């Protein structure tokens, strides 16, 4: 039996998980790394790299490398023109049409880029199942998560990405809801939960009631363009203001890497260095305060929409890497008046929930049920450019709404309908989803036809439309022209294209896996050596020359890492592993002792 998985397709990192013996687990590579950086490098020769390898190429080959593609999903060129300046890749496409990502001489739509990431996750899972000795290790079905505040176009783009990757997308579910499912597993309780999800590129807040195993979303809010990327950009601006703004694309990516490291450092420490200068947590907090503040108003609005006061919330759950920032925790804690939960890894909790949902779908297990809502009101354009709402935001999905149309002229056989999503009064302030032309209305005098248009939002939060002329009971044909999406034919063609490249990708994959393993050993080693207590370890626990041997092995591995010699990388990785064995033991013993002494060991 082929396998089903849950996928968290993140702005910064993506993960894949599955349910094993009733419990969800993240699928890791051989070195234990569960995260696949959502970075794609597409060379001129057609070779595509995804994940850690693509992340490395961001520094050496930035013009063929794309990151944070999630921010472009379901967007038009006009939406994103303004933010192209510091990106290494080209932002292309036709005015008024879907945005495209230009990598060298090639252009890709955001769903195609996302499909590369999804295919990487699919391969990772298949390799894992094969290693487990599964007879049928094919992964052909998946639940994929999206930000709760994603609109119809963004959800559809995500589903298209799954199709292009050769996956049957069983369900699109919302990230905060998925997280609540993962949290609800071990404690089958009743209560009101707020899930605060600040990731790499998006922010969501969802308020849920959990009762009898039903996870019912009461309200949701957010901003699909607010996250860790915005913090990185602020810090990059700070550095560029110091160094001068005209820098090569490679240098910009080095700066980006450095600011991300500084950001991480300041989650554990009071100060670090950035661009050779002392950079304190207080300075950092003052800089990012406006970004964090922007998350608080949607929280208040979500509470109001749920008809609740902050004090009524029983538990607050934090999701997304940006919730590691102490100030975020503090401000969220203050808003809800209680200490937020963070027992589960905020990077992994969404993928775990997606795996649980995938399991529910294939097994039909009725112990748990997710009842989600549509984040934005759905409406149609009426006279005077005003939006008339048909399905209100925070309606439980699936949901329906209908509207009656008639004709304005005698023997008119078609009516144009413009569908939008958003909360504003004027259509210009809302998101255009699609334009429909209702055809086949039987000829009759003006105003006599009664065409009932039915809008259906399914459990994925995706819209479909049907129409019927009531006098004649004739079903209408509807041509859907998505405002910022792909047609079914385009998705089909992209899927076929991807098969042609599958073989060429295989050899590259083996090299990448080797490099990924090497990279994670390097990272682990460097992390240990950067830790504050390392000096103490080196003085007390390491043998004479041991530190030098580790440093030499580290340098050896780094020297071959960029090359294409898989064997050499393999060999040097093992050498580094051997050289650091003793150090790892010492560090681990210390962290165990620290844990026994009740200290915070998160980063020991």
């Amino acid at each position, binding site marked *: 039996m082929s396998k089903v998985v849950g996928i968290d397709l993140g702005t910064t990192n993506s993960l894949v998980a599955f349910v094993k013996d009733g419990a969800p687990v993240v699928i890791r590579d051989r070195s234990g790394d569960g995260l696949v950086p959502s970075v794609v490098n597409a060379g001129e020769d057609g070779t595509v790299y995804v994940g850690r390898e693509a992340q490395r190429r961001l520094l050496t080959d930035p013009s063929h490398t794309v990151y944070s593609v999630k921010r472009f999903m379901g967007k038009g060129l006009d939406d994103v023109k303004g933010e192209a300046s510091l990106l290494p890749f080209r932002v292309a496409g036709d005015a008024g049409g879907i945005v495209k990502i230009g990598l060298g001489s090639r252009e890709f739509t955001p769903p195609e880029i996302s499909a590369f990431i999804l295919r990487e996750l699919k391969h990772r899972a298949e390799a894992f199942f094969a290693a487990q000795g599964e007879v049928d290790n094919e992964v052909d079905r998946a639940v994929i998560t999206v930000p709760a505040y994603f609109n119809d176009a963004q959800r559809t783009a995500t589903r298209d990405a799954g199709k292009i990757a050769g996956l049957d997308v069983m369900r699109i579910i919302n990230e905060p809801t998925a997280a609540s499912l993962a949290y609800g597993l071990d404690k089958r309780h009743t209560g009101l939960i707020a899930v605060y999800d600040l990731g790499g590129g998006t922010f969501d807040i969802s308020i849920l009631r959990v009762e009898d195993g039903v996870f019912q979303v009461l309200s949701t809010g957010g901003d699909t363009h607010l996250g860790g990327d915005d913090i990185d950009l602020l810090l990059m601006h700070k550095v560029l203001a110091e160094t001068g703004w005209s820098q090569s694309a490679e240098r910009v990516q080095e700066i980006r890497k450095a600011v991300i490291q500084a950001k991480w450092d300041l989650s554990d420490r009071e100060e670090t260095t950035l661009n050779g200068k002392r950079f304190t947590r207080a300075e950092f907090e003052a800089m990012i305060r406006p970004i964090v503040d922007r998350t608080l108003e949607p929280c208040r609005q979500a509470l109001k929409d749920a008809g609740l006061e902050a004090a009524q919330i029983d538990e607050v759950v934090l999701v997304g890497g940006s919730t590691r920032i102490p100030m975020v925790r503090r401000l969220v804690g203050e808003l809800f008046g209680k200490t937020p939960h963070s027992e589960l890894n905020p990077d992994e909790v969404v993928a775990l929930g997606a795996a649980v949902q995938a399991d*529910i779908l294939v097994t039909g297990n009725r112990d748990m049920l997710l009842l989600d809502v549509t984040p934005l009101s759905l409406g149609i354009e009426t006279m005077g450019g005003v939006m008339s709402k048909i399905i209100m935001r925070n309606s439980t999905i699936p949901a329906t709404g209908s509207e009656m149309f008639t004709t304005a002229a005698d023997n008119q056989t078609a009516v144009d309908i413009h569908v939008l999503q958003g909360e504003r009064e004027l259509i210009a302030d809302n998101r255009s989803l699609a334009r429909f032309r209702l055809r086949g209305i039987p000829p009759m005098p003006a105003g006599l036809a009664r065409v009932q248009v039915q809008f*259906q939002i399914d*459990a994925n939060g995706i819209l479909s439309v049907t129409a019927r002329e009531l006098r004649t009971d004739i079903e209408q044909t509807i041509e859907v022209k998505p405002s910022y999406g792909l047609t079914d034919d385009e998705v089909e063609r992209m899927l076929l294209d991807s098969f042609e490249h599958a073989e060429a990708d295989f050899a590259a994959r083996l090299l990448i896996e080797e490099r990924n393993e090497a990279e994670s050993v390097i990272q682990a080693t460097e992390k240990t050596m950067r830790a504050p207590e390392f000096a103490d370890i080196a003085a007390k626990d390491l043998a004479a020359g041991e530190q030098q041997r580790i440093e030499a092995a580290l340098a050896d591995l780094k020297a071959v890492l960029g090359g294409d010699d898989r064997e050499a990388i393999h060999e040097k990785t093992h050498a580094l592993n051997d050289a650091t064995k003793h150090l790892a033991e010492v560090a681990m013993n210390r962290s165990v002792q620290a844990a026994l002494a009740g200290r915070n060991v998160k980063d020991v």
Partner: protein
Amino acid sequence: MTSPAPAIPRNADYFSFLGLPRKLMISGDDLEQRFRGLSRQYHPDYFYNAPPAERRMSLERSSYLNDAYRTLKNPMARLEYLLQLEGFAAKSPEEASKQVPPDLLEEVFSLNEELDEIRDMRAGGAEPAQIAARLEQARGPIDAKRAAHESQLEQLFARWDALLDRDAPPAERTPVLEALRARVLERNYISNLLAGIEKEMSA
């Protein structure tokens, strides 16, 4: 294994679908429990592997359930839905808001006068605080009317439910339904008025 989800019966309404009588006073906890129970029966999650026809029915039924739950949860939406079922639907909202309900004539008349004066004050360059205080004062009678209105509605809800309990004949039901419809119109009108004042205050 999945049990089949039958299509929505042709004569179904939101009340019967949730197994409730057409009463206006509904226990929130009871409604929530019924909603969760039926969601567990019909939700598309449980029909993923079912034949297409069953999947379609599951989608239809759970959509209908969600619409029913949303409508019946809110007392005013519930009332308007009941009036529509009983054939006492108010006219279209635009039409309804044009005509001042007779019981409100006096308040509306004096409010409009007040608002005119406030506009004059504003045009004359009066202090914002002064204008705000004046507006607050102007909405006093309307707020009072709304409070009175709430208690009238409560009584009518109780009367309607009592009529249902003893299966009263249509001749007794009609006046209660008409009174309820009048209250709906008034309430919508008051809401519009208050929205108008809010707008005036934020201008």
